[in-house]
């Protein structure tokens, strides 16, 4: 196996652990942590492909910068929503959030 495949397997392991975290947790903040892991695994893949594609362009790095910006935006909005949820129903358990009207 080549080095690229090792990087991809590590990234795949991180992705699956993040997915496991999203599936098993009920706390909204913990789910957010799982999503961060998933986004980071995508970043590892982009940069590994960028190093091992044989060309000297850095498009993979640009994509990773965009992913990091999106992750920051997502974390800000998600935490605002979670704080609002806590204010409305008194917990951050996602199973408790059943109604659409606050």
């Amino acid at each position, binding site marked *: 196996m080549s080095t690229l495949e090792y990087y991809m397997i590590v990234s795949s392991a991180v992705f*699956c*652990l993040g997915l496991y975290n999203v599936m098993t947790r009920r706390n909204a903040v913990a789910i957010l942590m799982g999503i961060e892991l998933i986004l980071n695994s995508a970043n590892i893949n982009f940069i590994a492909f960028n190093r091992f594609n044989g060309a000297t362009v850095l498009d993979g790095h640009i994509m990773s910068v965009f992913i990091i910006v*999106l992750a920051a935006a997502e974390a800000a909005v998600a935490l605002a929503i979670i704080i609002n949820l806590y204010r409305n129903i008194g917990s*951050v358990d996602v199973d408790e959030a059943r109604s659409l009207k606050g």
Partner: protein
Amino acid sequence: MPDIIFSILSFLLILSSVGVCVSKNLVHSAVYLFFSLFLIAGLYILLYADFLAAVQVIVYVGGILVLIIFGVMLTNRLEKPSIDISSFNQLTAAMLCLLLFCLQCYAIVNGHWIDFDSGVIENSSKEIGRLILSKHLLPFEIISILLLGVLIGAATIARKKR
């Protein structure tokens, strides 16, 4: 030598990611996430992405993790001694994720990848800056508007209602 560093980094990375998933205390999860993000920055350095490693440490560890810990502290009553979080559907989720991991490994091992090391990248921040302002200018502008909108929106959502 890079192989040994890669093995150590990825072993610790997977270990701390498992820690994020199985830890019973939300603050411990956040600390494990902190270690995972740092180790991922180490992997970036191994891949010659020095600028991205710095951005990873600044944005994730300095920004997002602080936000997450803020979230933990704001959404839990502090009179309770520990911030417990429980997990559900563990067996089903573990089976599904293991299956997905095996499928991905099968696809990765059997795929035909272009595998040609591009070598050391000199001055990656200069090249990234040049690309952002030439080839990827439109996505860059769009994402900056998105970031502005998102920050205003987050402030509006989190504001106390009158």
